[in-house]
């Protein structure tokens, strides 16, 4: 197997054992990027010097007999919204095309401490607002399974690059589905952790009530290794949770589905669905049952009302963050980003605060009701066939919001509900493209999701599939 074909866990283990060097991993990734990225447009910026320097440092550590971190020498790349002091961070925008922050995101510091190296910034929706993978400034990102089709967004490059073996894993961000959607459309594992589980210090904000940082990877263990590196209280982010982290890697190494009650939700998640997407969901459920899980039907209520309440949060918080530039640099925004931000100016303060203050009550009611009858929920990550880039190039044309809402329909409710969601590929494809389900857990129940996800992975063998590049 080529070096780029290894999983993140295998790559790091290989460096630690001396099977190959971190420098060899970095060079293999750079060669793969040079060969494949022109077809995908996954990278906004490749930082060859940075990754070579990082790899040399890891190799030197090993040569000196120092203990290496769990991600030793593995080249990662991230959605281009994680600040690195002195480095470029475009946020997928024209406005920040030349922005060089003075701080470094805590999550990047933690990944580096775990031994990971950094390949560069990945394509994304402008300012992380958009579920398709289009970007009016840097061009659309393409899906390695079919380059005419969308990757999903807003972490478009994260999905494309990881699926295409350009890197071993990535960070995305998820405000309404932006980790889970590209993970789903690109046949990856994507974790949206519990709200506040991961520090957001040094991370571009979109909607501070709903933003989450999390990994996209090819396997469940890889995902757990990355979350283990970044999760936990951060004094630099006073909103980060004080709840103790669990051993996510150990959970992923201990697959367990036997006796786990999987709540199947229908209704809202099946409305206006494309039938093959639901068939793919059913194939995932069958695999979970085959692995020992116990299916139960669960009624979750009207999720459309949840999405209606998340709208003022996203719109008002984004409009507040962008108000100055909307006044001063309006022409530098893409049409869709500008149109969606401007919606935030219309909600009243009372409506915004009501949506925010209702949240504790709704989350408590939902969790108490649902998790008394099941351990995890199973829902499709998306309930449509993967659209083409052309069909979804709607910018701000009439009806664009309906096109976008249909893509993120199944993921958005869980951001308002704060709950962790693990997107996993389905055994059955959706018209030849990857299908995906999300396992939704209790607050701070990420370890349980990894344990169940690992059992599902063993049952389905989904990491064995590779895109036809």
């Amino acid at each position, binding site marked *: 197997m080529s070096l780029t074909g290894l999983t993140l866990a295998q790559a790091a283990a290989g460096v630690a054992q001396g099977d190959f060097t971190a420098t060899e991993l970095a060079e293999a990734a750079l060669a793969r990027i040079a060969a494949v990225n022109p077809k995908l447009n996954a990278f906004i910026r490749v930082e060859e010097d940075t990754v070579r320097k990082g790899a040399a440092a890891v190799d030197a550590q090993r040569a000196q007999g120092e203990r290496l971190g769990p991600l030793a020498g593995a080249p990662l790349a991230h959605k281009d919204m994680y600040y690195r002091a002195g480095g470029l961070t475009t946020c997928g925008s024209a406005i920040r095309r030349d922005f060089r922050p003075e701080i470094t995101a805590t999550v990047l510091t933690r990944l580096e401490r775990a031994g990971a190296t950094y390949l560069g910034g990945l394509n994304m929706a402008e300012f992380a607002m958009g579920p398709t993978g289009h970007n009016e400034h840097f061009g659309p990102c393409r899906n390695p399974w079919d380059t005419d089709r969308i990757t999903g967004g807003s972490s478009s490059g994260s999905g494309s690059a990881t699926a295409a073996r350009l890197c071993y894993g990535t960070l995305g961000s998820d405000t309404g589905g932006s980790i889970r959607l590209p993970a789903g459309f690109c046949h990856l594992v994507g974790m949206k952790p*519990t*709200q*506040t589980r991961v520090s957001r210090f040094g991370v571009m904000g979109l909607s501070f*009530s709903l933003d989450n940082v999390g990994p996209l990877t090819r396997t469940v263990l890889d995902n757990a290794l990355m979350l283990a590196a970044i999760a936990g209280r951060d004094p630099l982010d006073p909103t980060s*949770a*004080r*709840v*103790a982290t*669990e051993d996510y890697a150990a959970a992923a190494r201990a697959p367990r589905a036997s006796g786990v009650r999987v709540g199947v939700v229908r209704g809202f998640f099946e409305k206006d669905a494309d039938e093959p997407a639901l068939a793919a969901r059913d194939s995932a459920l069958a695999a979970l049952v085959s692995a020992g899980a116990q299916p139960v039907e669960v009624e979750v209520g009207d999720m*459309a*009302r*949840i999405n*209606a*309440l998340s*709208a*003022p949060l996203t*719109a008002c918080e984004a409009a507040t963050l962008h*108000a100055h530039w*909307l*006044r001063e640099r309006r022409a530098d925004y893409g049409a869709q980003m*500008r*149109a969606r931000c*401007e*919606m935030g*100016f*219309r*909600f009243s303060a009372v*409506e915004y*605060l*009501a*949506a*925010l*203050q*209702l*949240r*504790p*009550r*709704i*989350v*408590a009611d939902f*969790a108490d009701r649902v*998790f008394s009858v099941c351990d995890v929920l199973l829902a499709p990550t998306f309930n449509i066939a993967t659209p083409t880039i052309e069909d979804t190039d709607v910018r*701000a044309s*009439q009806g664009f*919001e309906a096109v976008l809402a249909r893509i993120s329909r199944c993921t958005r409710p869980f951001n308002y509900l*704060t709950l962790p969601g693990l997107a996993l590929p389905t055994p059955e494809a959706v018209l030849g493209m990857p299908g995906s389900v999300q396992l939704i857990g*209790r*607050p*701070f*129940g990420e*370890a*349980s999701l990894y344990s169940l996800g690992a059992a599902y992975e063993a049952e389905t063998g989904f990491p064995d599939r590779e895109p036809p590049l």
Partner: protein
Amino acid sequence: MSETERDEPFPGYRYDLAAHIRADRAQAAARRAILDHGSLFDTEPQHIETVLARLASEAGA
């Protein structure tokens, strides 16, 4: 200012009526959802931390 633009929310800032129409729809849906619930007296957004801490402890996290 043209008939398809509004001069708000800031003096001199203009955006088109299509955005207002979209916002009207989202606002109407949010208002209906808010009306599903009773009084918000004695609540505040920060209570979410208490709720999450309780749910985490019940799950053994």
